[in-house]
């Protein structure tokens, strides 16, 4: 008898406490609960691209009123369409983050047409007004700012004036990084060249290691990359006593001696903007871009090898980027076949759509498309 009473009392007290707490929590009172879905094309822990997204998703999970559902290794086939639909139907997701570039056309577009009440915030795509549904948005970060700063530091530190870049495929996002890295280095020393090796796919550990070794053998003494997981590259370079600049996330722990700095994503910024807009019922953010200034990307802390002069120069450039008046791609700019690709007097700001269609390697890059 008394046992039951006591249990009832505890229950009642708990309910009372919960009820009392609610009105004093302004977040809960003002916003509705929301379920957010994340889809990754690879494994969540790949030390690279997918991990940078998953880590930000973990931060979104901590936002009050947000439930997160995740699915990894979703191929860019009908599987991703069905996975998004399942999140909507089975989990009640009202905001979806499909994080791989290849999801956008046709998969996100197809599903978005059928579920007009759901928001689709795609990473990397190029949303166009009138062409794409209004419940779809695309966001991306100007990580070439980070690669430019990588280049500045590498330009100071390189003794051989030869830099190496291991790239997956010759697509605009990758080319922009290669070019920014090279321009950054050549802003320090115009004689510097960057050798680029394309591996052909996003995750080819043996090829990436082999490419790194080949670059080092041909005299490169600072290496960076644009592949899904830079781990192999950074470790291989460290073993051979060569300096590296990171990408996607910080690989400083993998190369305590040779890691100079790195270009890192900070996806939590665009994620939170989208989640807040969805919770407050504000209109869909269709086009969202940002760089260092907006907090979409960040740089790794300088490694022990970086000289004071390099730090000073890089910090100065970074300060200009943070104030928003630094132009990476300004005319006159030649490609590596000597043709002018940006005319004298033309400055492309980071937001310029022309830069998202880049199909050339700038002067100073040794490599073929």
């Amino acid at each position, binding site marked *: 008898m008394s046992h039951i009473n006591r249990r009832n009392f505890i229950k009642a007290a708990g309910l009372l406490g919960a009820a009392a707490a609610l009105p004093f929590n302004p977040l809960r009172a003002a916003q509705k609960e929301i379920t957010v879905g994340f889809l990754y094309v690879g*494994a969540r822990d790949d030390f690279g691209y997918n991990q940078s997204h998953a880590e930000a998703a973990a931060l979104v999970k901590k936002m009050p009123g947000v439930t997160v*559902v*995740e*699915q*990894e*290794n*979703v*191929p*860019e*086939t*009908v*599987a991703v369409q*069905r*996975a998004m*639909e*399942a*999140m909507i*139907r*089975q*989990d009640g997701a009202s905001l979806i983050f499909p994080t791989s*570039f*290849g999801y*956008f*056309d*046709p998969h996100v577009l197809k599903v978005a047409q059928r579920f007009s009440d759901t928001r689709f915030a795609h990473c*990397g795509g*190029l949303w166009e007004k009138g062409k794409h549904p209004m419940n779809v948005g695309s966001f991306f970060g100007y990580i070439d700012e980070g690669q430019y700063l990588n280049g500045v530091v590498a330009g100071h530190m390189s003794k051989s004036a030869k830099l190496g870049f291991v790239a997956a*495929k*010759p*697509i*605009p*996002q990758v080319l922009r990084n290669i070019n920014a890295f090279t321009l950054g280095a050549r802003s320090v020393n115009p004689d510097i060249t960057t050798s680029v090796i394309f591996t*052909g796919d996003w995750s080819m550990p043996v090829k990436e290691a082999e490419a790194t070794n080949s670059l080092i053998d041909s005299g490169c003494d600072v290496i960076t990359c644009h592949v899904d997981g830079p781990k192999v590259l950074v470790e291989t370079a460290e073993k051979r006593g060569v300096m590296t600049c990171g990408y996607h996330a910080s690989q400083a722990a993998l190369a305590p001696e040779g890691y100079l700095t790195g270009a890192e994503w900070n996806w939590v910024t665009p994620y939170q903007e989208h989640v807040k807009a969805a919770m407050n019922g504000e209109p869909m953010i269709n086009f969202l871009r940002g760089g260092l200034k907006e907090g979409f990307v960040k740089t790794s802390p300088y490694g022990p090898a970086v000289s004071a002069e390099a730090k000073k120069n890089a910090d100065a450039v970074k300060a200009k980027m943070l104030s928003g008046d630094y132009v990476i791609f300004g005319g006159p700019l030649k490609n590596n076949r000597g043709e002018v690709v940006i005319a004298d007097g033309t400055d492309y700001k980071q937001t310029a759509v022309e830069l*998202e*269609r880049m*199909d050339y390697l700038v002067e100073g890059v040794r490599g073929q498309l």
Partner: protein
Amino acid sequence: MLKPWLGRAAVLALPALPTLLAMLTTAVLFILFLLIQEQPAWQAGPLVFEGAFGSMFAWENTLMRAAPLMLTALCVALPARAGLIIIGGEGALVLGGLAAAVTPLWLPALPAWPMLIAMGVAAMLAGGLWIGLSGWLRQKRGVNETIGSLLLSYIALAIFRHLVEGPLRDPNSLNKPSTPPLDSGYQIGVISDSFYVHWGLVAGVVACVLAWVFVRYSVVGFSLRIVGGNPRTPRMLGLPVDRLVLLTCVLGGAAAGLAGMYEVSAVQGSANTALISGYGTAGILVAFAARHHPLGIIVCAILLGGLEASGGLLQRRLGLPDATTLILQGILFINLLAWEALSRRTLDWRLWLRGHWIAAPSSRAGTTEVSHG
């Protein structure tokens, strides 16, 4: 003594016994594995079923994934009728997809139907030629078709990647190198809004049924059974062995090529590397699990599609890694293949049952399941 109808039912059910045992063992092993890993095993089982077959959406999800598997499984099952083991369906699929994607570029503008037919023919030709090459190399040069088709498949993938990301790339496909997108009129839609599965499913089922009619009732199909049974007999009978073998390879390759065409025109809208997603390899398992029976392929493809469809639910509800589905598929196919060993016994049991329980055995029942592998 038991009633005759019970005996007859047992005779009919016996061929399914290895499959049922395989599924039972799979369930036990899978749950055991999850228990050892201290994962929520008891919730996982029902979730697999719910995700695969538990709702209309689950069925759509399952069938959509099953559609290409039916066609790629035929690429294994048809040559298997002639005694060949072809494992290069992936290459035929991507080349078929590529052929379908470039057909509208190289032909003048046509109305939708003629163009779709042209795309289908191009895809089937590409796939058929590729697998046909494996068959030809075997018959004419003595190159083993299993390894030959595997090598040719790798070569096809390299050619495909090179063309799609190089000479045939649409300059406007920025960060996802693809061939130029298909005109929306040339894209294949879904069956209906209330049954959201693309027409590839119908193509897959029809192809399997046609293949069944072909191997079961046509003279060629009968000849194939002789060719597949023994290498010497057909030559003594004067059967055109080379032509028969080649025919099955071309037909099988055409099926895989058609799968590529549906991937392009019903899913992707252009040819790109997303086409390389393992449908060909999965088709091998489907074909073997179905013992190369075309109608069995439909069932097995749906089963495998269901497992893949349920993987997402396991990830999202229980936080299990994506690899759980791989393990489940692995255990299932290991069991399906292993329990196949029982099928010789079931034949004996059937004969015994028929002798003891059923007074007058029907004359045609004896041939139904001697579908050899």
